[in-house]
Every structure is written in structure tokens, then in C-alpha cells.
């Protein structure tokens, strides 16, 4: 049995909610269970936008994550907000091109990914979240890169279809960066 509890947090427009959805879709497409819960309210306007994601091969008791096993953080405000909540020994994936505040917790496995820099290199500046998605797969698993890439094809259609190839490339770069670090 596995159960991954994840919080993805950034500022509005960075695509944090989308990363969470992509993880959940991939899990469902592989026959597992998933829940995705957005944080809504005043936080929608500026500040942090975040979502709870749970993926498991069993029924999920509750969709809201208060102590994530993995936290994907896309800006300093989100690091400040969620750092303390991560489970002891949990994983913190940082967009290191956006987050410059120090990580105070010493018990976490910290995965630094220059997602924005990589996305700029690929000429797809809004695709930084896809780099983090790939990094998540390498760091925490529970879903495969095949499922993620299939889902990118499925999600980016019509006028957005032109981003599918580039987004898959970005997700793979995130994956390979973390996989090659072996952590």
C-alpha cells in the first residue's frame, strides 16, 4: 500500500494548482485513487495559491492534507507558510530560481530545481511547473513519467496543443535532473 500526501504551493498564475491536478490525473489513469483539493477564499487573489493532493492504491480517507509527505514550493511566501507542516523526514521540492529564502528545517530531504531557468532555456517561460512535476515523479514516485506525458498530451489540446511537446520536454528535464542526483 502506498499513500503520497502532497501540497503544491505558489503564487497565483505559477501553475501550482495545475501541477497538483496533473499528479492526480496521472494516478487515476494508472488505476489508482486520487483526490485534489484547492485552497480557495481570499488566497485566490495574490498571496499563495495551493492545493492538497493525495494519491494512493487504496481508498483515501480525507482529501485535505495538513502534514504533507511532500511539498512543492514555488515562491518564498509558500516556503514560509508550509515549511513547518511537512512531515519529519519529508521531501521539499523547491523552484530554486524563485525561492531564495533559507530552508530552516534540517530533517527534510530538499530537492532544489531551477525550474524557471530551465523553462526559459526551452523558450516556454510558463512551463516551470512542468519541470517541478517531473522532479516530483523522480523524487516521490507513485506515478510514472509515461502517465504524466500521456496526460500532458490529453490536457493540452486545441489552441494549447502547441505547448504539449515542450511541456513534456520540461517534465522530462525535471525528472532527469532529480533522478541523476540520485536523491
Amino acid at each position, binding site marked *: 500500500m502506498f499513500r503520497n500526501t502532497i501540497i503544491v504551493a505558489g503564487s497565483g498564475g505559477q501553475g501550482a494548482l495545475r501541477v497538483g*491536478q496533473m499528479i*492526480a*490525473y496521472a494516478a*487515476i489513469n494508472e*488505476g489508482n*485513487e*486520487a*483526490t*485534489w*483539493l*484547492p485552497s*480557495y*477564499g481570499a488566497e485566490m487573489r495574490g498571496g499563495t495559491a495551493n492545493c492538497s493532493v493525495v494519491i494512493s492504491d487504496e481508498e*483515501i*480517507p*480525507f*482529501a*485535505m492534507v*495538513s502534514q504533507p509527505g511532500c511539498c512543492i514550493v514555488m515562491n518564498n511566501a509558500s516556503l514560509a507558510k508550509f515549511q513547518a507542516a511537512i512531515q519529519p523526514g519529508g521531501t521539499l521540492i523547491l523552484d530554486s530560481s524563485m525561492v531564495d529564502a533559507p530552508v530552516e528545517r534540517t530533517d527534510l530531504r530538499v530537492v532544489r530545481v531551477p525550474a524557471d531557468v530551465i523553462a526559459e532555456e526551452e523558450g516556454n517561460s510558463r512551463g516551470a511547473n512542468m519541470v517541478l512535476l517531473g522532479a516530483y515523479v523522480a523524487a516521490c514516485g507513485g506515478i510514472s513519467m509515461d502517465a504524466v506525458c500521456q496526460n500532458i498530451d490529453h490536457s493540452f489540446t486545441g489552441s494549447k496543443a502547441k505547448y504539449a511537446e515542450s511541456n513534456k520536454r520540461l517534465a522530462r528535464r525535471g525528472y532527469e535532473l532529480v533522478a541523476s542526483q540520485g536523491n
Partner: protein
Amino acid sequence: MAKVLMKGNEAMAEAAIQAGCQAFFGYPITPQSEIPEYFSRELPPRGGLFLQAESEMAAMNMVMGASAAGGRVMTSTSGPGFCLKLEALAAMTLTRLPAVIVVVMRSGPAFGTMKAAQEDYRMCGNGGYRVVTMAPSDVQEAAAMVYEAFDIADQYRNPVVILADGMIGQMMGSVDFDRMPPRRENLPAKDWALRGSDSRGGKAQAILFPVGTAHYIEKNIAETELYPALIANETRVESIGVEDADIVLAAYGTASRMCRAAMETLKGELKLGLIRPKTLWPFPYEAFEAVNPKCKAIICPEINIMGQMIDDVKIAAAGRWPVSHVGDSRTDFLTPDAIVEKVRQVWKEVNA
């Protein structure tokens, strides 16, 4: 159709369309606006009618009209809109018109906040009537209940309320539309429907509102036939481990999911049972007869202050066990941690 990931609101709308919903009348309000959005996109191309009314009250009156014309109809709202629909809902129970009303509760009183809550329990059945009130706890169940609600409404000629909450509406979860409840056979023909002409299988005109003695006859029929049949046939509950529980939690909807998380945390510490009413009316009083006589207490977690369902739980407990509430705190709505803390506190008290 395989398992798909959908928002609760969208899954409820899709289930309604698959159940043959022909018309939707609504008015936007968070956290249920994805329901009218989905209908506006999906229902017209699939042969139905979507209409955004000028207010919640108008939408509900349109539901009454379309139902009187024999249609399968639905509306949805949240607490601040539901109170505006109650006048027409009450009229529909008196005139015995079927419809499905989805209420996606948020935190009040009044306009309140957008956060999920369970504060409209007592709004489902004021004014001398009862309606079947179904309480889903996840996306699959929300879809299944909406799907079945249309048949229940038509079978008994009485509206059905789906009492969901903002978390079920906003969250995405898996739903498999191949796993909907079976369609009910032999539903009564709507020979009372106002279809404009006898040739269309209905009436051209009718006075639906019973007055004078007829009013009391209708109420007597409800008390002696309709409501006993609903209680006998449509009461739903899920019970987990109550026979040997030290403490039993009684909760519905999202609060029951919080209970499941709390039960995981407390595993090994004490034996917790769960009674989860899937229908709030008819309330599953019988389920409490299976509770361990040696059980020390019942705790009723609800996403509100003071508790609302707790009154029915106390009736069911009939003084055999102390019943206490845990709900919203000074800083947040109910959480699994708050349930854990309450259980530990009560356990200490009953063992003192």
C-alpha cells in the same frame, strides 16, 4: 466509461444529465457555480434546457413549473440561496411535485465565507414537511446520490435534497459512471402533469394546491403513507466497527471523512466506531441499536458551531451514552486534529 477524475460539482451535474435531467434552473453562488457552468455547457447540446434565472427564488419557481409540466428538473445553490428556495420547496411538497435540489453548503450565518460547512441541516424540512435528504461524502457518492435522487423524487412524487458541502463540490476525486445505482423500474406515470393537452398524456389545467379540508387530507396522507414509506425504504447509513467500539463517532459528509482520518491517527489507542448517515432524513436511528452497550460515549463532529445533527443523534442515543459535539474552532473549521483531541479528552473524562 472508466474511472475519471472530476470536481464534485461537475460529477453531480454529469450524473444528473445521465439520470435524464431535462432542465436546470439556477443562479450562481460559490461553492457550487461549477454545477450551472457544467449544465450551461453540456445540457443544451444533449437535448436539455439550461436557464440562469434572475434570482434563486425565481429559479426554484421555474423548477416548480417545469416539474408540474412533467419534467425531470433540478436546481442547485448554497445556504444563502437555499433559504430563498424554501418557499417554493414547501409548496412542492404540498403539491407533491418531484425535483432534485443540490445544496453545496458553505460557512454562514448569512453570506459568511466560502469555506465548507454543515450549517443547513435544519433547513431541510421546515414548515410541516419532510424531504429525503442525502448526504454524500465523496465525489463518487455525490454523483451516485444525484443520479438516484431523480428516481426517488419521481417514485414518491416528493422533492429530494442533496446536502453536499464546499469541499465535496470543489475537490476532484475519482468517479466511475458505470457504477451508478440501478435505474428504478415501473416509476408511476406522470398522469397528473400539466402538458397543455390531454393528447400529450397530461392535463390541460389543474389546481394543484389543496385548500380547506383537502389540505388536511394531503397532510394526513403524507404522515400515514408517504413519510412511513420513505422511512421504511429510503433510509441509508454506513456503520463501521460500532459493535465493539469504546467511543462512536457520528458524522456525515466531509465531517465523516475527517472522522476517518482521525480514526487512522487513533488506531491502537482505543476502538473507535463510525455511524455515517447517508440520509439525514430519514435519519438512521436504528443504526444506533447496534452500538456496543459498553461504549462509553458518542461524539458528533460537525462543520459548524453547537451542532445540528447532534439533536437526532441524542434522540437515537436515548440517554444510553453521553453525546458531545466538536466543530469549528476559533481559528478554523473542524479538522481531523480537533476530532482526535476531542476523542482523547472525552476518553479521559469517561475513564476518570
